């Protein structure tokens, strides 16, 4: 089988018989490559429970692309965003990623929303030496076994968020109970709390109650949780699981005796839940729009978003979409091209500020060192607008001290 045939744009070829005719077109394509747009593949779960987050990611990523193009692109070369629906399904994501690489010849992939999907995308990109900027939470992806030379993790990870929340909430002498979803992500979040508790000292973890992933009814886990009489309950799950378990924990009177904290407090999930159920819940976040009063880059980002979306404000996962795309385009511009090696060199150790203040891309594991916001969900009465959901209790600035060391992650240093 001829190797060259695979490089053809198959949509232009009607059948095997026509393949031979296409050889001249190939030469043409090579000549044209220089002024072709820089394609960025953007797999995101437009279908499924995180559709709202995904759509906001797309809106924000598009802002980054538009800004890049408005600023002249890369020596005149424009960027183009190719959005693909990964359906929150790793298999689908892998297929879409293969298509983006093999057929659309993208320069890099940015995106994904769940831990499993990003690992699937990463598996495909790292085998093919394709640049990938992941924008969803995971501890695993920067660990040596999954890490790839071309993999970058712009999102926070459970270790960082859980740690930041714990450092803010835990006080010596406290009794802490953890409710965690029994899968990688849940365990990672729980581990983050545990490490932070040990570092603070004097914090007693009285119970680690596991529950199966995707449980609809948490009532069966709550009596035991209540019986250990904790001061703080850390709920380590995500999305629907989080909304469900918080609601039921409140129903079962957990909040009458304890404070509920979560590693990640999502903007859209809070909208889907009710202000009553979330009232007073404390959690971490990568972004919340009201930080614009202290962070200039956030103000600029919000304004660009407001202009493009009738005055609405971006969500936390939307900000990831902006940040991930802008990061990689900036690196390309600085590298003066889209060559993977050059861009990787630019990104390693890169200091930047896209929308939330200064960040650094750690060279050894490609994890973005960045701030974590500590948010508290407002009471209904305190909300001034539909978008006024949280109080920002604190911003923990990015620091390598709050990350696991690269040696811990299994990297050779």
């Amino acid at each position, binding site marked *: *089988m001829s*190797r060259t*045939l*695979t490089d053809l744009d*198959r*949509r232009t*070829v*009607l*059948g*095997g018989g*026509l*393949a031979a005719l296409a050889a001249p077109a190939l030469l043409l394509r090579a000549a044209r490559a220089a002024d072709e747009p820089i394609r960025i593949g953007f797999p995101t779960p*437009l*279908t499924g429970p995180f*559709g709202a987050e995904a*759509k906001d990611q797309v809106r924000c990523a598009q802002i980054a692309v538009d800004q890049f193009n408005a600023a002249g692109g890369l020596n005149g070369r424009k960027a183009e965003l190719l959005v693909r*629906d990964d*359906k929150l*399904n*790793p*298999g689908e994501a*892998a*297929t*879409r990623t*293969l*298509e983006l690489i*093999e*057929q659309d010849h993208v320069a890099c992939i940015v995106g994904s929303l769940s*831990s*499993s999907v990003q*690992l*699937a995308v990463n*598996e*495909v990109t790292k*085998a*093919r030496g394709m640049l990938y900027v992941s924008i969803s939470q995971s501890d*695993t992806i920067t660990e040596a*076994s*999954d890490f790839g030379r071309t993999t970058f993790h712009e999102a926070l990870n459970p270790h960082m968020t859980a740690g930041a929340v714990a450092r803010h909430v835990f006080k010596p002498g406290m009794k802490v109970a953890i409710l965690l979803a*029994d*899968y*990688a*992500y849940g365990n990672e979040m729980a581990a983050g709390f545990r490490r932070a508790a040990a570092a603070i000292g004097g914090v007693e973890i009285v119970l680690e109650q596991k529950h*199966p*992933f995707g449980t609809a009814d948490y009532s069966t886990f709550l009596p035991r949780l209540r019986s250990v009489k904790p001061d703080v309950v850390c709920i380590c799950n995500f999305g629907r699981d989080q909304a469900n378990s918080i609601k039921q924990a409140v129903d079962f009177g957990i909040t009458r005796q304890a404070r509920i904290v979560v590693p990640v407090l999502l903007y859209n999930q809070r909208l889907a839940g009710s202000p009553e159920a979330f009232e007073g819940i404390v959690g971490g976040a990568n972004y919340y729009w009201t930080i614009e009063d202290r962070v200039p880059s956030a103000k600029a980002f919000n304004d660009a978003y407001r202009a493009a979306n009738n005055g609405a404000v971006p969500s936390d996962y939307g900000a990831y979409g902006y940040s991930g795309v802008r990061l990689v385009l900036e690196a390309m511009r600085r590298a003066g091209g889209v060559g993977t090696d050059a861009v990787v060199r630019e990104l390693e150790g890169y200091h930047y500020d896209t929308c939330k203040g200064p960040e650094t891309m750690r060279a050894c594991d490609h994890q973005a060192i960045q701030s974590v916001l500590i948010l508290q969900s407002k009471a209904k009465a305190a909300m001034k607008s539909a978008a006024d959901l949280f109080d920002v209790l604190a911003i923990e600035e990015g620091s390598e001290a709050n990350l696991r060391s690269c040696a811990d992650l299994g990297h050779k240093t």
Partner: protein
Amino acid sequence: MTSARSEAHEPTRAQRWRVPLVAAVLAVLPWIAPSQALAVNILIYGLYATGFNLLFGYMGLLSFGHAAFLGAGAYGAGIALARFGVGWFGAIAIGVAASGLLAVLIGALSIRSRGIYFSMVTLALAQLVYYVAFQAESWTGGENGLRGLTVSSLRIGPLSLNFLDPTIKYYVIFGFVTAALWAISRLLNSPFGATIEAIRENEGRAQACGYDVRRMKLMAFTLSGLVCGLAGALDALHLSIVPIDTLYYQTSGLAVMMALLGGAGTFLGPFVGAAIFLLIEDSFSLWTSHWQLFVGAIFILAVLFLPRGAWGTLVAWRADRRA
């Protein structure tokens, strides 16, 4: 279920040529499909639906748990590659064997029930497999899926093929699928093929004739599982991951949808169905995130107005014209 004409004892011309025919179509598929990754999916899911059809179309048992066998094949091959460093060919064999073993277990439990009960029991048992795989994180990667099984080159004797090259990957998988189809075609032409059709047509009479119907059902169930297992193993090689979703019950539903859209009980129907389904999904999801509305509606319309499926209707129409 709408059944196909019986396999005549002398293979008809159509039966003799069906494997070369499908092989010829599949050989040019990468050049006509919108993308090569989609073409590979048609191969794999076509084989998956064909395996399912062995049980549903030819034996009349509607399983709603075939995701378990696709998954067992994928995880079997994936674990062999990722955890034990088995070669790619051995991994495929292990995947197929794992799926066959699981099919024996699930089959032995489920063939005790009939009709709709059978569908529900297979569904529930497959969900059990799903949850077990979810929990067995150290083996399966749990929710994150199984990773670390990228095969970048295939060694075949002195030859080394670049498996990352989409064209080479396609034709390697094509080779396996064609071989499997050839084997299935022989199986259907064999006395055993006659037996399962007879059981579909009249289980009681088959029993009275001297067939151990349970055993035959179990055999058909296992063979069906083996084929789906091969599809799963190939999928693991193709995607270089095994997502936990492979085992979820909606993957089982996928086989049902594909077989029905194409034509259950016909040899090529499931392939046609897989191609139709994947093309619809691919093209619709590009312009709307509500593609499931259309998939669901098309499926409803197919059940109502095209119960023989696209290919099945064509076959029946030709048969009627000849008669």
